[in-house]
C-alpha cells in the first residue's frame, strides 16, 4: 500500500507550476525555436543599433542648407568627400589612431604586472587592496578624473609645487598630447587589468614552477611561458582598450587644451557647433568603419582572445 503521508517538497510544486506556465507561453512544439528566443534580446539590441546606423547613414548623405538650416533633399556623397579631403579630419583621425595605439601599449604594459600581482599574491589582504585600488576609480567618472588631473598637473598644481621646492620653474604639464595619453592610460588601466586577470588566473602556477625547475629564471619564465599563455587575455584587453580610446571624447577635450581633438570631438563639433548633422553623421560612420576594420584585422590575425569566450579560432 502506498505511503499517503508522503508530500513533495514545496519547491517541486513551484517548479512544476513554472514548467506548466512555460508550456503555455512557449509550447513544446516551439522547441526548435528556443535558440532564437534566447537570442531575441541580443537581436533586438543589435537591431536597434543597426536601425540607428541606417538613420545616420541616411543623414550622412544630405548636406546642410545654411539658408534654412535643414538637410537638403538630394542624396549626395559630398559630406564623405569633405571628410576625406579635409586636412583637419585626416590629422584628427591620425591623432586618434596614434593615441589609441599608444594608450593600448602603455595600458597593457602597466596592467600585466598589476594583474599578475593580484592573481599570484598569497596575501588575501594585498589582493583585496589591489582590487579596491582597481575598483575605486570606477566610482569616479571620467570627467571628474580628468578635472582631478587639471588640479594635480596644473601650473599651480601639486606636481609643480613639488618641483618648485627643488627650484624648478613651473612646467606646462597639461594641454598637450602626452597629457591626453596620460589621462587615457589612467582611465583604461582598470579595464586592462580586469580583462587580463581571468586569463592569468587560468594559467596554472605549476607551469612557472616547471619552467623554473628546468632552469629558467623568473623573467625568462614570464617572457617565454606566461606571456604567450596570456595572449588571449592580452588580445581581449587590447581590443577593449583600443576601441574605447579611439572613440574617447572627454580626455582630449579636457586635457588637450582644445588643440588635441580626437574624431569624437570633431563629430561633436559638427552636430552641436555648426549644426551640420550630415557631416557629423559621415564622420561618425567613418569612425565606426575605422574601428571595425582594425578590430576585424586583429581578429583575423590573432583571434579574438578572451572575447571569443572559449570558441575556437
Amino acid at each position, binding site marked *: 500500500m502506498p505511503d499517503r503521508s508522503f508530500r513533495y517538497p514545496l519547491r517541486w510544486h513551484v517548479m512544476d507550476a513554472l514548467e506548466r506556465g512555460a508550456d503555455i507561453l512557449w509550447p513544446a512544439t516551439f522547441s526548435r525555436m528556443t535558440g532564437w528566443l534566447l537570442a531575441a534580446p541580443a537581436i533586438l539590441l543589435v537591431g536597434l543599433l543597426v536601425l540607428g546606423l541606417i538613420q545616420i547613414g541616411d543623414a550622412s548623405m544630405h548636406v546642410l542648407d545654411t539658408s534654412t538650416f535643414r538637410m537638403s533633399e538630394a542624396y549626395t556623397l559630398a559630406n564623405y568627400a569633405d571628410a576625406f579631403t579635409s586636412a583637419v579630419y585626416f590629422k584628427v583621425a591620425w591623432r586618434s589612431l596614434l593615441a589609441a595605439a599608444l594608450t593600448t601599449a602603455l595600458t597593457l604594459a602597466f596592467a600585466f604586472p598589476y594583474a599578475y600581482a593580484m592573481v599570484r599574491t598569497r596575501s588575501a589582504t594585498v589582493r583585496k587592496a589591489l582590487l579596491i585600488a582597481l575598483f575605486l576609480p570606477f566610482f569616479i567618472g571620467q570627467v571628474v578624473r580628468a578635472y582631478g588631473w587639471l588640479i594635480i598637473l596644473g601650473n599651480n598644481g601639486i606636481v609643480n609645487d613639488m618641483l618648485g621646492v627643488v627650484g624648478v620653474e613651473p612646467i606646462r604639464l597639461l594641454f598637450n598630447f602626452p597629457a591626453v595619453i596620460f589621462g587615457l592610460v589612467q582611465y583604461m588601466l582598470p579595464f586592462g587589468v580586469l580583462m587580463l586577470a581571468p586569463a592569468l588566473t587560468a594559467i596554472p602556477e605549476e607551469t612557472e614552477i616547471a619552467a623554473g625547475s628546468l632552469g629558467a629564471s623568473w623573467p625568462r619564465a614570464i617572457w617565454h611561458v606566461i606571456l604567450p599563455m596570456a595572449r588571449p587575455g592580452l588580445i581581449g584587453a587590447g581590443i577593449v582598450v583600443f576601441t574605447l580610446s579611439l572613440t574617447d571624447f572627454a580626455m582630449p577635450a579636457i586635457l588637450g587644451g582644445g588643440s588635441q581633438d580626437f574624431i569624437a570631438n570633431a563629430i561633436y563639433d559638427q552636430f552641436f*557647433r555648426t549644426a551640420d548633422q550630415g557631416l557629423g553623421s559621415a564622420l561618425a560612420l567613418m569612425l565606426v568603419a575605422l574601428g571595425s576594420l582594425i578590430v576585424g584585422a586583429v581578429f583575423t590575425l590573432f583571434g579574438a582572445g578572451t572575447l571569443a569566450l572559449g570558441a575556437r579560432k
Partner: protein
Amino acid sequence: MRYTGKGLTRRGLMRSAMATSGAALVAGMPAGRLLAQDEPEKPSEIIVRAWGGSWVEALKAGVSNPFTEMTGITVRHDLTEDNEIQPKIWAAVAQNRMPPIHVNWDTTTNATKSALRGVTEDLSDLPNLANTTDLAKPVGLDGYPIVNTYGYVYVLAYRPEAFPDGPPQSWRDLLDPRFDGRIALYNDGIGFHFPAQVAGGGSLDDIPENMEPCWDFVREIKALNPLLGEDPDFTAWFQNGEIDVACTISTNALAAQQNGVPIEWTVPQEGCKFDTDGLWVPQGLPENELYWAKQYINFAISQEAQQVWLDGLGLPGVVPGLTPPEGLADDPSYPTEPEDFENLIRISSEVQVQNESEWFSRFKEIMQG
C-alpha cells in the same frame, strides 16, 4: 519664412490679451490681479535655458524671481549648453513633440539658425518692444523671431602683471614670444575672427569674401600654442595662472575680477567684436504656456528687469535710460552712445550664420594642425 505654424485666430487672441496684460505685468501688479478674465491658465512652471554661474544668477535676480513674484509661476533654469539644446528643440519641433524648454536664452547667431529653420515663435506682438532700441531687433530677419536683450564685447582680457607697461594696445602685441602657451581663445574661434582680420592687415569690408588676413593672423597666434576653451575654462585658467591673455566676453572677465582674480580688459586699436544675445520661444508649446513664455520675454525687456539683470552681467541693454553698473560707465565693454561703437566690430548674424561652418573649419584646420 515661417515663424509659427499656428492659425491666425490664436495670434489675434494672443495679441489682444497681451496688449492689456503686458502693461499690467510690467507695472508689477500682484499675481492675483493679473488679468483674471483674459489670461490663459498658468502653468506651474516654465523652463528657461540659461548659461550657468554669474549669468544665471543675474537672470534670476533681474527677471526670473520678479516674474515668479508677479505671476506665481515658478521659473526653472535649464543649464544645458546653448548648442546642445538646439538639436533637441529642432528634433522636438520636427516630431511635433513639446519642446524641452519654454524660453531659450541664446546667442543671436545661434538663435538665427533656429529662426531660419522656422522653429521659433513670432514675438513681434510683445508690448514692451515699443520701448526698446534698434539693438533689440535681429538684423536680416523678418519680424521678431528673436528679441535681442543686450549687447556684449569680446574684449582682450589680460593679467596686469603680464603687462607692466600698461594694457596691450594691439592684438599683435600677443605675438610676443613670452606669451607662448599663455593665450586663450574660444575653441571655435568665435570673437576672434574679425579683429584677427584687421590685425592680419585685412579689411572688414572683405568679410566674408576674403578672410585670408584673418587666417594668416590665426596662424601666427597658433605658433604660440594658444589654449582653446569655453567661458568656464578661461576663468579657471586665469585663476590657476595658466594664461596671461584671453579673447573673451567682458562679462566673464568681470565675473572673474569680482571673484578676486587679478584681471583687466581692453579694446585694442583693431577693435573687438560686438554681438548680441537674445530670448526666443520654440514652437510646439501649448497655447497657455506659449502665452506665459512670451510674457516672460516681455518682462525681460522692461526697464525694471533690464536694470537688475544687466547690472549683474555688466552689459548694455536694449532699453533707453538704464544706469550703467558701477565702474562701467566709460568702459569700452559697455557701449551706449554711437561714438562708443566706433572701435567695435559688428557683423550681421546673417553673414555669421551662413559662413560659420566654413570659418569654424578653417580655424580648426589651423589649430589642430
